[in-house]
């Protein structure tokens, strides 16, 4: 239900009344008009489309009753002959401050009920104001994006009688925000052009399945280039949840708000602070017995990484980011003895966990996120190397992969590696900085080298193997050589040479990681990184 608008009162106070009450009554009337957004019909249509209005969204996102709106009076007004306000259409961007988990944030959202959220019905200064406010007050920013592009319709040429070089008004604030405050952007409808840019120019971008689409340009524009296409086919979650345009896809707006709140809970309000410790909820000495069998002895057999992560971090504290794309890499935020940390690992179900081009991109962005906001990183390493093969080469794996390794080397946050299985090739070698203190543990399942023994044997002993005519004899010889090589592949031999610092019982990992988090906490340094941040 939209609020009723009070009747106008005379703006001229009676002689006996020497206060400004009439103006306050007028203020309340105008605020009530803003509350009505695009009017009952448009609000009804928004609801029928399975979407909340921008005001309902802000209310759901923020702590109850904490929204302090700025610029509610901005909009298009018409006046009657008596100079009395007769009609008012609010600007289609609602913004202000509020609180999430009792911490102040800035929130701004498009109002799709007014001209479909299009920029030509907005007052662009409001959007820029929200960005600047987040930057200068050093507050996290949440964008609720539900609008079309930055330009008006081509119709504006008729009224303006001129054209213009497209500007990116206030974009410098949006870019600077990435290096200063956590930015979460939610795609909550069909989002094109500048709207899509506002989604992606963030640390954490989400879209709602079925109701949100993201594109450079929508179907009407695309139709002229490559024919008719439905908006969901062009920019639905099945596309952008798999290519990294958004980090995660959710099924409902409520889930998007819950994820936003949770994401922010691990981060400081700005780079000028470090994250607060959460109330410790789990025993730092907890040793889950099953971890001793978590990695299969058969090296060709895969295992599930997520239960291992969940066993090591504080109970229920793991928030995976980007589960749908670059899936060989597994990234998420968690807590260790209450301290927020980043957890990097790989999924052996995805080509053995080999970093592909897109997995490498995901790692780069994740490590940059952790470094920007001073989150210590735990890397659970099982890395057979960058993806090999023709498809890998065509995807440019080595460039993206080496960029990820550069990100790891540029990061200055405390870093702990746990070698849980494979460490091979350049991809494996890049699991941590090659110059900083190697704060590292290895599980007894660790296997490493420039090339794995399997596969390496056939290349290295080709002449000897080719001399054997009989395939059975060949296989027998391969098995024999492999066994010989495997015998020296024991991690104990590596530890003898101090080429790996410690071999640990996997069940001791959580206590050791909690120790790491406690040692790392005072080493976190507030302040901007020299590297800045790119989306």
């Amino acid at each position, binding site marked *: 239900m939209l609020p009723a608008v009070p009747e106008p009162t005379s703006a001229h106070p009676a002689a006996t009344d020497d206060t400004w009450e009439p103006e306050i009554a007028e203020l309340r009337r105008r605020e009530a008009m803003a509350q009505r957004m695009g009017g009952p019909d448009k609000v009804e249509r928004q609801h029928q489309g399975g979407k909340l209005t921008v005001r309902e969204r802000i209310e759901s996102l923020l702590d109850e009753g904490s929204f302090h709106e700025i610029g509610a009076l901005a909009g298009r007004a018409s006046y009657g002959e008596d100079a009395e306000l007769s009609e008012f259409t609010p600007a289609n961007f609602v913004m202000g401050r509020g609180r999430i988990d009792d911490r102040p944030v800035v929130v701004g959202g498009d109002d799709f009920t007014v001209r479909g959220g299009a920029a030509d019905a907005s007052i662009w200064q409001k959007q820029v104001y929200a960005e600047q406010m987040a930057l200068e007050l050093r507050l996290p920013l949440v964008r609720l994006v539900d609008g079309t592009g930055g330009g008006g319709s081509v119709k504006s040429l008729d009224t303006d009688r001129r054209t213009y070089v497209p500007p990116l008004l206030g974009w410098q604030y949006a870019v600077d925000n990435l290096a200063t405050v956590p930015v979460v952007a939610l795609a909550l409808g069909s989002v094109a052009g500048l709207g899509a840019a506002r989604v992606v120019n963030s640390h954490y971008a989400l879209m709602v399945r079925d109701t949100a689409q993201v594109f450079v340009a929508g179907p009407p524009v695309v139709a002229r280039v490559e024919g008719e296409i439905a908006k969901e086919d062009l920019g639905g979650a099945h596309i952008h949840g798999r290519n990294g345009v958004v980090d995660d896809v959710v099924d409902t707006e409520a889930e998007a708000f819950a994820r936003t709140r949770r994401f922010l809970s691990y981060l400081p309000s700005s780079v000028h602070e470090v994250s607060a410790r959460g109330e410790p909820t789990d025993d730092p000495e907890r040793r889950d017995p099953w971890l001793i069998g978590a990695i299969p002895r058969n090296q*060709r*057999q*895969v295992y599930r990484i997520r239960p291992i992560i969940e066993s090591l971090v504080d109970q229920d504290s793991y928030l995976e980011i980007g589960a749908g794309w670059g899936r060989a890499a597994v990234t998420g935020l968690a807590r260790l003895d209450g301290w927020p940390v980043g957890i990097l690992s790989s999924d*052996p179900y995805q*080509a053995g966990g080999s970093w592909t081009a897109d997995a490498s991109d995901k790692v780069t962005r994740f490590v940059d996120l952790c470094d920007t906001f001073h989150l210590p990183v735990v890397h659970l390493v099982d890395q*057979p190397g960058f993806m*090999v093969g023709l498809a890998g080469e065509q995807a440019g794996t080595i460039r993206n992969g080496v960029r990820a390794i550069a990100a790891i080397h540029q990061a200055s946050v405390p870093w702990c590696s746990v070698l849980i299985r494979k460490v091979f090739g350049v991809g494996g070698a890049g699991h941590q900085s090659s110059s900083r203190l190697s704060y590292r543990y290895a599980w007894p399942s660790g296997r490493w080298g420039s090339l794995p023994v399997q596969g390496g044997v056939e290349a290295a002993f080709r002449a000897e193997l080719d001399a054997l005519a009989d395939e059975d004899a060949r296989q027998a010889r391969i098995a024999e050589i492999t066994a010989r090589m495997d015998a020296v592949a024991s991690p104990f031999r590596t530890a003898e040479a101090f080429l790996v610092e410690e071999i640990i019982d996997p069940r001791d990992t959580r206590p050791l990681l909690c120790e790491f988090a406690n040692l790392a906490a005072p080493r976190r340094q507030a302040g901007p990184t020299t590297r800045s941040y790119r989306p």
Partner: protein
Amino acid sequence: MTDVRSEIAANVWKITVEVGQAVEAGATLAILESMKMEIPVEAPRAGTITEVRVAPDDRVAEGDIIAVLD
């Protein structure tokens, strides 16, 4: 009917079910090979196998249908 698809580009190593066979949720339907690892393709739910679309040594792309479950 549920299409069970490959999540990755890989070679088919083994098919571990037959058409008409009833399977539990999580049962291994086929084993793919990628980067020298054996990657099981698992049933997303219980059901009966109505079709197997691939054979050993086939090359599958991400999203290719491995089997159909009724």
